[in-house]
């Protein structure tokens, strides 16, 4: 029965009656991202009238204490001065409940089931904002308690935060456990990069315009650079980061997703299945990264670890001097690599990826560099060679798209200079851009998995990088090159591109 009041109503779809169950309710992610996202969605009328939140964690909190935590979170991370005076915040708070217990205790799930029955909601979204080490046991307990199976008129979904495993084997076994209790359609593996406006816009840019796709191939594109640079160090995440490093933390998920969006073939429809199929095809075409002694000289991957230096106006310590970090740590805080795709579209077009901590600038972008014109007819009149065309997708912090092309300098002489044409979300459209977690949380409530990672994609990306990790583990920690904090990575990173007659873009 369609809702007659929705005709021409300028709102995006809203989910039906539902409950969000957050495992790890007292944790950092919940406070920083999830609770503010729920508030913003509610404020914008994007949540159903029958909506409630059940926080689950070990901390012995009451409903009231968890509601206070919600208010605190809005104050700190949603910029609300006085959440207790905010009508939306008060309304959401009334729908917040809390269940304390051990995550592996069947008793906890019995109480959860009881609470879910009381809400009478059709849909239940479980959010695993918990350490990856307990994903499997929570999924098992949910399954054993009968909470993973959709009800006749309802649905059950689960959001799993990254990292999805630590290597190919663990990713496969995590997927196997999840699949034991949830169908793939019920599983939403979140990668917050995919919730960013520009990343979604990449699909529109490529497949909503007729002029770019014809040149989006080896015939016109020289190479692609994808960069995710951070100025921050390891901060308070040493315990996690020591075991992860930049390759697991950034490349396996965020950068692989960006690469797939750039490299994918056009989907036949804007549906989760079609988009994810094409992304998977793109990733599957990546050549393996060969790691052995004979390949060392022309290795396609470079790692580094930040030494002490100066970033954003402050002196900062070396990674090994950070609290919680092993003084002999071999964990990489920087990675750059070259990936080659075996496909008709991309044969011979390298994709260079780089990411690192304590780099000079916080920026994430995709830069597509086009080939130079076949004939440089202005060589005689311009002293420097003509800059190749560049298309830059700015993912953060200033979301937008820029195009670089050549223009004649004004004057009687024929002189050529590059100019940049910029489109910025912040200035071209009024209003604010939603936070990635708002977009993704809502999509999961609506059952739209387009912007979530599928199991085969996760496993394929682990299959690419796991041999690299295995090789690095065999090498001595002393062999990790360092770079001064505030610089753009170790010298080997420049050599990686110099070997191909190219260089990193100046960011």
């Amino acid at each position: 029965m369609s809702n007659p009041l929705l005709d021409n109503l300028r709102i995006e779809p809203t989910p039906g009656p539902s409950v969000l169950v957050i495992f790890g309710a007292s944790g950092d992610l919940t406070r920083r991202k999830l609770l503010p996202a729920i508030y913003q969605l509610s404020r914008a009328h994007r949540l159903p009238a029958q909506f409630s939140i059940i926080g689950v964690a070990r901390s012995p909190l009451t409903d009231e204490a968890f509601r206070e935590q919600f208010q605190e979170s809005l104050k700190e991370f949603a910029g609300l001065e006085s959440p207790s005076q905010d009508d939306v915040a008060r309304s959401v708070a009334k729908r917040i409940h809390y269940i304390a217990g051990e995550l592996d205790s069947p008793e906890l799930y019995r109480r959860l089931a009881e609470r879910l029955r009381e809400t009478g909601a059709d849909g239940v979204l479980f959010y695993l904002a918990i350490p990856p080490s307990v994903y499997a046991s929570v999924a098992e307990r949910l399954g054993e308690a009968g909470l993973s199976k959709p009800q006749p008129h309802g649905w059950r979904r689960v959001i799993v935060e990254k990292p999805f495993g630590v290597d190919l084997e663990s990713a496969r076994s995590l997927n196997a456990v999840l699949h034991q209790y949830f169908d793939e359609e019920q599983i939403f593996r979140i990668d917050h990069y995919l919730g960013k406006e520009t990343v979604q816009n990449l699909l529109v840019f490529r497949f909503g315009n007729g002029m770019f796709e014809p040149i989006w191939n080896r015939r016109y594109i020289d190479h692609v650079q994808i960069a995710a640079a951070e100025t921050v160090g390891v901060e308070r995440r040493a315990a996690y980061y020591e075991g992860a490093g930049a390759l697991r933390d950034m490349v396996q998920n965020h950068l692989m997703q960006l690469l797939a969006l750039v490299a994918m073939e056009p989907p036949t429809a804007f549906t989760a299945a079609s988009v994810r199929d094409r992304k998977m095809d793109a990733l599957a075409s990546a050549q393996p990264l060969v790691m052995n002694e004979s390949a060392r000289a022309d290795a396609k991957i470079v790692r580094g670890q930040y030494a002490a230096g100066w970033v954003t106006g402050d002196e900062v310590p070396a990674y090994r001097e950070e609290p919680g970090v092993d003084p002999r740590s071999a964990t990489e805080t920087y990675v750059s690599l070259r990936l080659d795709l075996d496909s008709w579209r991309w044969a011979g077009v390298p994709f260079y990826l780089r990411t690192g901590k304590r780099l000079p600038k916080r920026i994430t972008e995709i830069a597509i560099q086009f080939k130079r014109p076949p004939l440089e007819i202005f060589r005689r009149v311009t002293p420097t060679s003509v800059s190749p065309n560049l298309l830059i997708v700015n993912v953060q912090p200033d979301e937008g798209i820029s195009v670089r092309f050549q223009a004649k300098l004004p004057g009687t002489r024929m002189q050529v200079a590059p100019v940049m044409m910029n489109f910025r979300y912040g200035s071209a459209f009024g209003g604010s851009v939603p936070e990635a977690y708002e977009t993704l949380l809502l999509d999961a409530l609506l059952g739209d998995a387009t912007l979530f990672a599928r199991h085969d994609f996760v496993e394929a990306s682990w299959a690419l990088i796991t041999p690299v990790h295995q090789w690095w583990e065999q090498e001595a920690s002393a062999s990790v090159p360092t770079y001064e904090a505030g610089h753009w990575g170790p010298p080997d990173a420049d050599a990686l591109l110099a070997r191909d007659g190219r260089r990193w873009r100046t960011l």
Partner: protein
Amino acid sequence: MSVTTDRLLPEGVETRFSEIEPTMVRMAAGAAVPGSPRRSITAATTATVVIVGPKPRLIDVAESLKSGGHVTGVRSIFIATGSLCTPGVRVTASEIALDGLRGEFIDNAVAALRLPSLPTVLWWRGGDFDRLQALAKLVDRVVLDVDDPESLWAHIDALVAEGPVGDLRWTALTRWRVLMAHFFDVPAMQSAAPRFTRLQIQGADRHSARLFGGWLMTSLKLQNTRIEIEDDSRHAIARVTLGNDAEEISLHRLDRGACVEGRARVNGYEASRVGSIGDLIPLALMSEELRVRAHDAAFEAAVRSAGSIGMADDRATV
């Protein structure tokens, strides 16, 4: 602090009509200079917004546009209607003001000044219907924003025949409509609609109340429902109650004014929720309108239906 002025774009420069484009280019170059008093123009533009009306009704919009934020990426053309063939012209990097232009030349001016290949939206803040209709032929969308829309709403069919039409009153009702609509996601609520015999709307703006009433009447196909509109000076719309003796859906503006609360108690189903009322200043509403391109059939039907909802007394009934 805003400065009261009787001039449109006092911070702009005076020029001749034929010099508008080159002057704007020079202003844009100046705006790129650090310390320039104007906000810098954006590199990407999305639309032309033509704002037409009596001068006093344009000055406040021009003043608030300075703050940016809501409506960006557009070329704004202010046309204060008058009797001049050669109006006063002032420009900034992204705005044009024509002061006192004779009505019959407005469409010529718009044709010359709008950005090519991008939508043109007419923000109508008052004037003759004939002028409006002539302009409607030229633009991609008309957005009405007048104190008394009665005479314009009476011609809604003629207007929509030229292209999509909206009304900022309607835009301001969006959150109310969303909140009401959410309750009707539940099938039990939809089947209860024919039982509703009473619709009460309290608010300071009768036209908004009639529009909202018209929308509910047409969308829910209410036939035996008595509509009462009562004055309430606090907000354009303060409270809406739909129901019968035993069942009720009520929406009301909360005391602090920024939110609206909805409660439903229908056939054993009970629910409540609170949402933001949104930003109701004209620029914010216009920014929402700029996202709309197509005909809004619900608005058109609501306007037609609003015509049958009484206007005369404090307590208007149907």
